[in-house]
């Protein structure tokens, strides 16, 4: 899809996913890292052997990218970066607003000379506004975006997902902004700035909740209380061996699933008398309060607790009710549906003489595949190749290496 588009990826881990997705779409993504290696080449390591080349975060999130080293803090590095920009369509970066321009290598400094350039800046709060230079990692962005306050239990602190969801949302959001800017350039001939705010991106996980609150202050969602099974939009139930998700919402699109589950319970002889005769067509969850839900919760809860996640899910698939297991990585890796769609692909690690599975891509496309094009780069793996394409003479590259501007593998 994006063949012929060259992208310079200067991001830290908050933005790795953006370039990964664009690379999976066929763009030539060149990941820049300091000559000493990127700080995100950290634990956990493949085989638990401490080595920046075995960082699983790096290997997972920088697929479909080539890799070069460059010290942007060095005057000659900044100069060389300017030459790279001249041959690029897109720059992706996650520095604090103003930081690159102080060195003459930011959007403000470069876009006039490169009118076709698309520049994507991913920051916690965006490049404008009173919080533009505020610091924030994933947790701060989730907190400021409104999702943390409503996640967790009422008797404990609000929580965020244990993996970085603001980064997970920000990556595809930034990639989308870049794709839009590239689409616009087809007709205008001009590039533009894509100014991503992780806070705003995170706000959208509440699916208009903050805006609904303005209409109805009772919609200021709360964290769940122990004993609750009903949450705002999700219900998690204990099973014999783990947890499943099942909702008690009605409406035309959901009532058949409540009927299907009830039918199974009746077949098993485990539906209470009242439930056996229940007329689901009259069910409206909006008319029930906590007490009103209780008999449903007790009947379904008892049924679920006697069964395994696997049995419940197999029946959900066959009988078409909306129950899903709360899968962990192992269960996802073994999932028959994902396997049948070739969702996992094997990536070769030639220098380690092994191969590892990875999620293949975010979608299937009929014309030109979306998916991993190459493994993540080793430190400086494509220095010679990329600087060669740029026309940097061998002598100059050698001198840059001696000065530590580009990694010197022999040093």
């Amino acid at each position: 899809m994006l063949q012929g588009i060259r992208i310079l990826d200067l991001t830290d881990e908050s933005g790795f996913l953006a370039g990964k997705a664009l690379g999976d779409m066929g763009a030539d993504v060149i990941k820049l890292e300091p000559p000493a290696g990127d700080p995100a080449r950290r634990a956990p390591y493949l085989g638990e052997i401490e080595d920046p080349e075995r960082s699983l975060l790096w290997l997972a999130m920088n697929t479909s990218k080539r890799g070069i080293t460059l010290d942007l803090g060095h005057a000659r590095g900044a100069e060389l970066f300017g030459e790279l920009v001249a041959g690029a369509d897109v720059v992706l970066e996650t520095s604090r607003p103003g930081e690159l321009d102080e060195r003459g290598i930011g959007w403000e400094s470069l876009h006039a000379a490169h009118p076709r350039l698309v520049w994507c800046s991913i920051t916690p709060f965006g490049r404008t506004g009173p919080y533009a230079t505020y610091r924030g990692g994933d947790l701060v962005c989730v907190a400021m975006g409104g999702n943390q306050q409503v996640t967790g239990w009422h008797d404990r602190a609000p929580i965020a997902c244990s993996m970085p969801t603001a980064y997970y949302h920000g990556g595809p959001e930034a990639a989308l902004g870049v794709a839009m800017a590239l689409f616009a350039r087809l007709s205008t001939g001009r590039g533009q700035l894509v100014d991503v705010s992780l806070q705003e991106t995170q706000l959208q996980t509440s699916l208009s909740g903050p805006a609904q609150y303005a209409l109805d202050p009772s919609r200021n969602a709360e964290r769940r209380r122990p004993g609750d099974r009903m949450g705002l939009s999700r219900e998690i139930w204990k099973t014999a061996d783990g947890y499943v998700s099942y909702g008690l919402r009605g409406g035309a699109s959901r009532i058949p699933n409540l009927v299907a589950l009830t039918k199974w319970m009746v077949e098993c002889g485990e539906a209470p008398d009242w439930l056996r005769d229940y007329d689901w067509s009259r069910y409206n969850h909006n008319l029930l309060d906590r007490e009103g839900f209780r008999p449903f919760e007790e009947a379904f809860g008892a049924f679920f607790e006697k069964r395994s996640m696997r049995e419940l899910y197999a029946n959900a698939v066959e009988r078409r009710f909306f129950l899903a297991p709360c899968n962990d990585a192992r269960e996802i890796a073994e999932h028959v549906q994902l396997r049948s769609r070739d969702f996992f692909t094997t990536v070769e690690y030639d220098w380690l003489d092994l191969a590892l599975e990875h999620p293949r891509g975010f979608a299937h496309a009929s014309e030109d595949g979306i998916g991993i094009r190459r493994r993540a780069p080793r430190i400086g793996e494509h220095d010679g190749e990329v600087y060669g394409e740029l026309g940097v003479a061998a002598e100059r590259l050698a001198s840059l290496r001696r000065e530590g501007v580009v990694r010197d593998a022999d040093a």
Partner: protein
Amino acid sequence: MQTPSIDLAPGVFSGLKVIEMGSGAAGPVATRYLAEQGATVIRIESSKRPDFLRVLWLTPDSKHGLEGSPMFAMLNPGKHSVAFDLKQPRGVAVAKRLVEWADVLCENFAPGPMERFGMSWPALREINPRLVMASGCLFGQTGPHRGYPGFGAQGSALSGFNHLTGWPDRASTGPSGTITDSLAPRYVALAIVGALIERERTGRGQYIDLAQVETAVYSTSDVMLRYFANGEVVTRDGNRNPHAAPHGAFPCAGQDRWIAIACGNEAEWAALRRAMGDPDWCSDPKFGSIEGRKANEDELEQQLGAWTSGFEPHALMETLQAAGVPAGAVQDFEALQHDPQLAARRHFQLREHPALGPLQLEHAGFRLSDSPPDYATPGPVLGAHTSWVLRDVLGLSEDEIASLEADEVLV
């Protein structure tokens, strides 16, 4: 072509013609990105089977019926609505006429309906070879569980986000909102824009088969690689992070008020110590390294929480940010309404809804420097644009329209 009574803002997608079929968030939020940038998005709906968001909070006393759902209105701004009953062959026939007109068709039905309508990709490609069609159901168009029905709550469970969100000593809480409903639309829109860029080169459209669950698992590629490489099953750990301490939400003055603080390196920890006035407990050598703070995290959190509980969260955020500490108030929906950053970036746009009054419409998480986002209207009244589409877009005669009306196709 005449637009209806509203003026569409110019944008990246001005002139782009989009059909939307389906419901909920995963498809509709994807086309919202297009509508926000000027695309003409026409939703094919029917009062016989309304979008479930239109009825989610419906009770017998609801004043505005299918037009009373703020969530529907907020997730579908800037779009048009036609009412076609696709259970009738003539309804399908007009829908196919619209496919001839369209650049993009985005749908997120569970597999089945599009085939039954005779509107699967092979059929539509015959009608319009330049069409870009995206399907975005929960589990994809192929595989043994393709018919598995589900909404976002199931996606969050299946893709591992429930397992990854919560306290280690309790049942998972799952992330608030439904993670697949906020992740998948970004990827749907990204794939659509990628296909449009490719179409400029090839002249051909293409088909995108996207599974919401796969987009979520793809985003957590690092979690999956940790499993494939080391057999590690990443699990939930409250707010804690293996590479940062302190890293959590800490109590503030007032009821259920919190601040998120995340010190990812020694400089940030030193900045926090200074901001606290370097109390005695901080100088204990056991807190002098990340390893030490991780090993003594309960005590660290208790001491820090005792300090934060004397402050209002926003005031404390200002203090800590000024000192160089990544910190942010844990904002509830009320706080988001007063957030000066969101206001400065015009994250919300106010538009009048015919039944609900002024509504806040949320923008994408990025700004394009040459194309500010704009929605002409909130989500459409069901069927509001049927006659405009039939007359002005498709050029049907008054007799044909009268005949469709008489046969109750336009409902």
